């Protein structure tokens, strides 16, 4: 009820930030907000000193993504598939080994394009652990005001910015501004984290398992808040989660990752209704159904994903794939359009002429 009251007060403040045409828009509405090409990050976990065996985890191994303006892109996959690393790479919180990131058509980090500072102002992130991502020694207000301060606002300006942000996420500043993180509930803390991210005035918000740790009812509230914010502020979301239902609810497009690579990408309805990659199919069929007539009949995914230190040759999913054949061990499948130009999958069985027995012979 508090939220409702404060929202009307804040409409005027918001309008300043969200004019009908965003002045920050450089590439036009059709230019994707983010383009990622061939992003790679390998972590050396051992072998830093002499004589130790060299072990490298290929956390993200050649990821291509596109996020349109005003779109919500969902990224799903099992734990350890590189979702979170991708998110951190997107913000340059860790340096990618190779690959490029284009923000609104301009390369990040190059001489002519945008620098990392600008990227971080345009892209913000909400982390999974709502407690760990708030400084326990700072009040909520100070936490939210930190970003604007860095951005060059004066102390008082930053504080009033923080207060209007708190109001926007449904936390009355009179009640919450002076509190410390441990005095809030998980849902409230995550609202603070959203306010903190939005206070910088970003165009893209990366939500890295942002609602996964919340109770179901609170999760729904936060999801609704996110939907509203997106509408009022004209945001673009990258929504990372392992929860298929939540991703289906919030996303416009979905990307499925497996062992540091994208295996399938496409509009949400297509992915959920006609998955073309056997991994996606297996993931979806592992969801418990509310309808008893739709019992799971397909064999569920067994075992853990293989060790990313030594991923299988060829297609990485072949060790768990019901359709695996010789070709899959030899050639790594590329992301290719299937059925529809917007629907991509990396599976030999779906590409005609690949040599897989399920694929049509030749094109």
């Amino acid at each position, binding site marked *: 009820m508090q939220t409702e009251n404060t929202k009307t007060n804040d409409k005027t403040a918001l309008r300043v930030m969200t004019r009908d045409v965003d002045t920050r828009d450089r590439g036009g509405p059709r230019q994707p907000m983010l383009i990622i090409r061939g992003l790679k990050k390998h972590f050396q976990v051992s072998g830093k000193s002499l004589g130790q065996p060299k072990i490298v985890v290929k956390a993200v191994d050649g990821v291509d993504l596109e996020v349109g303006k005003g779109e919500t892109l969902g990224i799903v996959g099992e734990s350890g598939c590189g979702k979170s690393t991708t998110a951190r790479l997107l*913000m340059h*919180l860790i340096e990618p080994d190779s690959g490029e990131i284009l923000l609104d058509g301009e390369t990040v980090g190059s001489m002519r394009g945008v620098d990392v500072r600008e990227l*971080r102002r345009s892209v913000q*992130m909400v982390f999974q652990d709502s407690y760990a991502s708030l*400084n326990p020694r700072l009040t909520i207000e100070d936490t939210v005001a930190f970003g604007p301060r860095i951005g060059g606002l004066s102390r008082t300006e930053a504080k009033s910015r923080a207060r209007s942000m708190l109001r926007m996420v449904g936390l009355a500043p009179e009640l919450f501004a002076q509190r410390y993180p441990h005095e809030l509930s998980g849902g409230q803390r995550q609202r603070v984290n959203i306010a903190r991210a939005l206070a910088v005035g970003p165009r893209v918000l990366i939500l890295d398992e942002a609602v996964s740790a919340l109770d179901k009812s609170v999760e729904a509230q936060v999801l609704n808040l996110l939907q509203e914010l997106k509408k009022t502020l004209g945001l673009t979301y990258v929504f990372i989660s392992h929860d298929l239902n939540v991703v289906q609810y919030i996303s416009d497009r979905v990307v499925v990752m497996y062992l540091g690579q994208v295996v399938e990408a496409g509009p949400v309805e297509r992915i959920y209704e006609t998955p073309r990659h056997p991994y996606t199919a297996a993931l979806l069929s592992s969801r418990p159904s509310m309808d008893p007539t739709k019992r799971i009949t397909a064999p569920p995914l067994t075992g853990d994903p293989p060790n990313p230190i030594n991923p299988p040759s060829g297609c990485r999913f072949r060790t768990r794939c019901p359709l695996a054949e010789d070709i899959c061990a030899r050639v790594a499948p590329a992301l290719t359009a299937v059925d529809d130009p917007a629907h991509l999958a990396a599976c030999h069985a779906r590409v005609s002429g690949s040599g897989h027995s399920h694929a049509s012979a030749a094109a």
Partner: protein
Amino acid sequence: MSDQAATFSGAIPDTVKTERSRSFWQAVFRRLSRDPLTMICAAILLAIVLIAIFAPWIAPNDPYKTSMVRRLKPPGTPGYWLGTDELGRDMLSRLIYGGRLSLFMGFTPVVVATFIGGTLGVIAGYAGGRINMAIMRLIDVFYAFPSVLLAVAISGALGAGIVNGLVSLILVFIPPIARVAESVTTQVRTQDFIEAARATGASGARIVTGHVLSNVVGPILIYASSLISVSIVIASGLSFLGLGVSPPLADWGLMLNTLRQSIYIAPVNAVLPGVMIFTTSMCFNLMSDGLRSAMDVKG
């Protein structure tokens, strides 16, 4: 009182007032003030410090006035409640004055070392990589000496004197404090809120002052407070060995040293200065323990 004041919405401001959030340090202070043992120790220490500061007004006699006729009088002698030392100086006055140097010699090294060692440790912890290696390996070398030995070695080479004593003690305490600061900072650095701060585009210095320091100062201070007791004992120990404070100045450790020769003749006098060292060291230790448990709880 209007009816509206009784409604729920009217009640909110009241709860806000009563549940006003306390900052971490306010909460720690409140918890400390409810710990009787810590408060007793604080009172004793405060008394010792005040007595030392106001020594000229409190001491009954001149602490430097010697007399060959009234040497080593036992405690209880009229006019000399705690007796006299081997040169006939008033024990009580010397103990009162001795607090000045002994406390100064015990306290200063920890304060200076906390500042230097803390800075080094935070830099090493936040920077990581090569900078960390360079700083911490240097620290490790000094850490590779037993603390008393290092203090004795440095002030032994430099020679007696207050400044030399202080320098050697500072060098003894920098390594352990730097180590603690480094490990705490390393822990804090990997937390999400630091990532979030980095994501706003803040510089390293801004993040350290805005987010890291507030989280590492507590543990560093707890550790440093536990060293004060050690420092007082070692500082007096240096004077006891004839390093550090030199005669005729009044210092508890030095008094123990000179009175030691008279242990068979006036055992009680000889042992008295140690009681002061022990009491101060014990109180600092207990207070440090109290501080530790007061800061143990989140928030």
